[in-house]
């Protein structure tokens, strides 16, 4: 044990974290690791770096178009389609605003909205129709909460290689805004109004119907994201947060909320149209879901020895209560550690101490949320609905099935969905 690095010492002292399968003897000294030598470069200050900083040039993680091989973003006309977050490089629970996934109902030019000109109108079945400026909204009592948003298309398939390709259409940020209930109470919702319609400012004025019960429970009219104003790709200057519901409900460029007497089946609702009541029910609130981000598809383990398996878990049903990890392809499961507090309808970071013996194996994670809903394997879902589990099997509604990663004996990691 020749290492004198403080981090390593702390690691050995903190042996409690290693309980469960990992013996001290298995930790090999980090032979051959020396401090870097060579001349140290420096970063010259520029006006831009002072005004609005940027990350190190050695950090190169970026978003990519989704799905792989799909419509490029931007396309030749400057339209933005779907772009996915590099989850495999993520740490903690917050997705940096620059790396937050982007979804559009169809390729759209982002509206370039002057916040001075922007208005939010609330009308319909209310006692007092009201129009708010951005300044009005920022004067109202605010809340700040951490929430994920996940796109309906965030579904793994055998031909997707990395966590970005399989799960990159979810992201998690800190959102600040006015509770929608405050605005609706100011307007005075009338009896017999079970739905609201929320509408944006972009060219198609994308709109969704949202149950009044959800609107009053926890929806947020958000102007802030990760400590600053929303990004244009995220709906600047105003977006609706519908925590735990599928991404499309989180209306960007929000300009209008109408309180109505029925389900409107408006522009974005039409995409949810189905004959199947189960698919309809499973199609709007996100189920308990998790993915191991390290080690994940496309990554390489440098050799046997200790690794902290790391990943993200989230659910539209509330907070994550439990995450389990299997390092033997789902035969046995052990509890992972949830880092920090798991917020409701937010990504939770989990970690699991693992000593890799250098043999091929398969890693999986599954989570349980505060409602007791458990993340299933594809086989469990197929069994529940009594349908055959073939390569063409699709999980009904929003796919929240377990993601298996195969670790080959050479340390390379691969998507293990058949």
């Amino acid at each position, binding site marked *: 044990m020749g290492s004198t690095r403080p981090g390593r010492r702390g690691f050995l002292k903190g042996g409690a974290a290693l309980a469960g399968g990992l013996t001290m003897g298995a930790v090999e000294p980090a032979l051959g690791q020396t401090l870097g030598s060579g001349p140290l470069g420096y970063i010259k200050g520029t006006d831009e770096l002072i005004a609005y900083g940027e990350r190190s040039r050695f950090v190169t993680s970026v978003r990519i178009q989704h799905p792989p091989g799909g419509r490029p973003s931007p396309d030749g006309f400057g339209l933005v389609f779907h772009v996915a977050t590099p989850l495999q490089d993520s740490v903690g629970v917050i997705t940096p605003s620059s790396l937050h996934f982007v979804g559009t109902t169809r390729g759209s030019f982002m509206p370039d909205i002057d916040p001075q000109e922007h208005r939010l109108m609330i009308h319909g079945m209310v006692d007092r129709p009201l*129009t708010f400026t951005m300044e009005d909204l920022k004067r109202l009592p605010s809340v700040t909460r951490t929430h994920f948003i996940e796109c309906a298309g965030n579904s793994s398939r055998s031909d997707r290689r990395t966590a970005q390709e399989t799960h990159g259409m979810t992201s998690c940020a800190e959102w600040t805004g006015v509770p929608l209930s405050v605005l609706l109470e100011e307007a005075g919702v009338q009896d017999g109004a079970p739905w609201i319609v929320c509408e944006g400012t972009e060219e198609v004025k994308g709109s969704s119907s949202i149950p009044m019960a959800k609107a009053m429970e*926890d929806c947020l009219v958000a102007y802030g994201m990760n400590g600053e104003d929303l990004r244009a790709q995220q709906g600047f200057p105003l977006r609706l947060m519908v925590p735990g519901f599928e991404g499309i409900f989180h209306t960007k460029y929000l300009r209008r909320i109408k309180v109505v007497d029925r389900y409107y*089946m408006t522009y974005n609702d*039409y995409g949810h149209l189905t004959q199947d009541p*189960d698919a309809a029910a499973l199609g709007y609130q996100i189920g308990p879901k998790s993915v191991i981000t390290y080690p994940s598809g496309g990554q390489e383990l440098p050799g046997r020895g200790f690794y902290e398996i790391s990943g993200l878990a989230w659910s539209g049903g509330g907070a994550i209560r439990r995450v389990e990890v299997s390092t033997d392809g789902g035969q046995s499961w052990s509890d992972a550690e949830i880092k920090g507090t798991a917020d409701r309808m937010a990504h939770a970071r989990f970690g699991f101490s693992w000593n890799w013996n250098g043999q091929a194996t398969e890693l999986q994670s599954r989570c349980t949320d505060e409602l007791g809903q458990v993340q299933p394997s594809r086989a469990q879902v197929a069994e529940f609905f009594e349908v055959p589990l073939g390569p063409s099997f699709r999980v009904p*509604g929003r796919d929240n099935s377990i993601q298996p990663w195969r670790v080959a004996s050479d340390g390379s990691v691969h998507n293990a969905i058949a």
Partner: protein
Amino acid sequence: MRSLSLLPLLMLVAGSALAQSPTYGLGRTPTAEEIRAWDISISPAGDELPPGRGTPEEGALVYQRKRCGTCHGPEGEGGRADRLVKRESGSAADPWAWGRVLPIRAPYATVVWDYINRGMPLNREGTLTADEVYALTAYLLYINDVIAEDQVLDAESLPQIEMPNRETWAELPDWKPGMPRLQGYPY
């Protein structure tokens, strides 16, 4: 009657001076004109439909004039964009087999009107007049055998059209806080 129908308008005009929310004293009352300009999501009951009218025949002409066919094909099929006529495979007994084609699958004709009004033509959204949208809706419903060739569509008649999927779609469950996604489903 006449003075009665003016009443809400007068109240709005008077109200805009007070113009503020009760607890925080913020915001102002929108004018009736401001509401009308933005009130574009159409209820299945047709409440928000504007005045105007159109027939399938007029719609066929608008379809040509607005060059819908350059993307959707000259008669609603064979273009780069989604087909607008039903597939052969469906039947009145199995309307879903006609395919994911808005003017036949939508449970309400208002959905077709709303979609065209806000969303088409692609890249020139918001340029159609109400008459043109009624006419295009009539044309697309006609080529899908939903309405007759001589039917006039307006704010009255459009919501009354019986779409083949009116009763066959699954409604969302009544959402309540703390509700699992699907009763009896453990996942």
